[in-house]
């Protein structure tokens, strides 16, 4: 019964993925060519209407799904690929080489304390605002979250009997990290990844909205929201569609995260 969360999350994510995939081969109208049919209300043939440049909103939403997934995947992968090994390293360093743990985690504290928005502004100033700079900024800013989660999980695994048994069989420290620690912390990292995905989507929308992410003209959900702001008083419904899309995608990944936590947490599993 508690799996409803998981399945609802998966269904919402499947919807976003399907939209992104469809946009690769087909959109109802040209998603970038400006037309004279500006700000049409929802109806036929533009089911959700058109925006201030006369572009079909559904077409833009479909393309936006693609960007949302790309941003989520890349920034979460970046954060996980950098953060998880750091956390595992810190967690395995042990008392005798405790300075490794100290150094790694203090560096993460510094990154954590550094405002992500400032990072995005700096990157945009250096390399120009683009989807890539937004993804890098989001990725770097979420490294500490992955490092902390991975470290905590690693400490737990490292104290387990089966790690002691593996050492008794002659497995070396680094083989233990690869064979025993990574597979055992994977569920926790997976939960963090799905929650991180939701955060990345929101952050990218915010950065695009502020003009620090994907440039104008590219149909991202955050960018659409920014465009809708110009006609907010006359056409508020323009902001509804991208806002709804963002909300559903974020909800989907958050539900997935919570659902995974429930399913994978052995203590909760015992109760049921």
């Amino acid at each position, binding site marked *: 019964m508690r799996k409803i969360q998981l399945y609802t999350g998966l269904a919402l994510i499947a919807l976003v993925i399907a939209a992104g995939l469809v946009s690769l081969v087909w959109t109802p109208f040209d998603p970038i060519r400006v037309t004279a049919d500006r700000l049409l209300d929802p109806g036929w043939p533009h089911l959700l209407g058109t925006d201030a440049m006369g572009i079909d909103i559904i077409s833009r939403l479909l393309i936006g799904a693609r960007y949302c997934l790309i941003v989520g995947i890349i920034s979460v992968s970046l954060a996980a690929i950098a953060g998880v090994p750091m956390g595992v390293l810190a967690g395995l360093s042990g008392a005798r080489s405790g300075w490794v743990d100290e150094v790694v985690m203090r560096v993460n504290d510094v990154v954590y304390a550094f405002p992500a928005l400032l990072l995005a502004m700096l990157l945009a100033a250096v390399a120009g605002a683009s989807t890539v700079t937004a993804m890098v900024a989001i990725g770097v800013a979420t490294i500490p979250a992955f490092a902390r989660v991975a470290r905590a999980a690693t400490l737990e695994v490292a104290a387990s009997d089966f790690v*002691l*048994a593996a050492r008794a*069989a002659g497995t070396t420290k680094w083989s233990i990290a690869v064979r*025993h620690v990574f*597979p055992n912390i994977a569920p926790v990292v997976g939960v963090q990844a799905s929650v991180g995905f939701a955060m990345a989507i929101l952050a990218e929308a915010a950065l695009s909205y502020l003009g620090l992410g994907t440039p104008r003209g590219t149909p991202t959900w955050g960018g659409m929201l920014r465009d809708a702001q110009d006609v907010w008083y006359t056409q508020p419904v323009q902001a509804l569609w991208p806002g709804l899309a963002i909300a559903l995608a974020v909800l989907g990944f958050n539900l997935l995260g919570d659902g995974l936590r429930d399913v994978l947490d052995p203590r909760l599993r015992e109760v049921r």
Partner: protein
Amino acid sequence: MSLLEVSGLTVRFGRRQVVAIDDVSFTLGEQERLGIIGESGSGKTVTALALMGLLPENAAVTGSVRVRGQETLGLGEAEYAKLRGDTLSMVFQEPMTALDPTMRVGRQVAEVLLLHARNTSGNSRQRVIEMLRRVGLADAERIADSYPHQLSGGQRQRVCVAMALINSPDLVICDEPTTALDVTVQARVLKVLDEMLDAEHTACLFISHDLAVVSQVCSHVLVMLDGRIVESGPIHRIFATPSHPYTKGLVATAQLDKVAPGSPLPTVADFYTRAGATR
């Protein structure tokens, strides 16, 4: 030269240097079996982990442990890892937690084989299956493809025995390997262990708190109390003429069938009371 020579082994824990085992000395020859018996907290597991070099980092170990004449205390982690699983191996008390839940058990056994692969020839899976059969797991193929949670406690402990013996080590340390199992399963696992030790010509250090269990596997026994060895000798001698009061208590509790009808069941506390303890 004996297989294992331990002299003056002392382990202290933490900053306050709490003594867990104190001046433990014994020797163990090739293919010999020695039991260590003592109550909970007497330092049995600490002794075993000290021999394996697996004590946590807050433990200070002094004394000497020689394996075939080679001093192992102070050995680097990498050199120790070569001894473990190959010359020395260990079976743990809790079969429920001693196997990695994310890995099929066949692979876990194969890993140990490959870690010390002297003869890389031959199929490792074939050898794993054969080993699982030898420890009494009839449908070894299915067991090898199972995850630990799909197996019973007895099956898991057999897997652990297979893992400990697959490289034909010189010495296996068994830390209460049957305590977590019920009595019938315990008897079967002990029998398998006994046969395998014979077949592989492996020496064994068998830890237990139950003299009856130790007597099924070992010929000699050390009695440990509060981190010290208080008595040692052939097991039949210990049974016949225990000298330390604590040992007398152990012997009485191990021979419940000799209790005269009508008299109360003996406990160790009838024979031995710690200084300062009140009855």
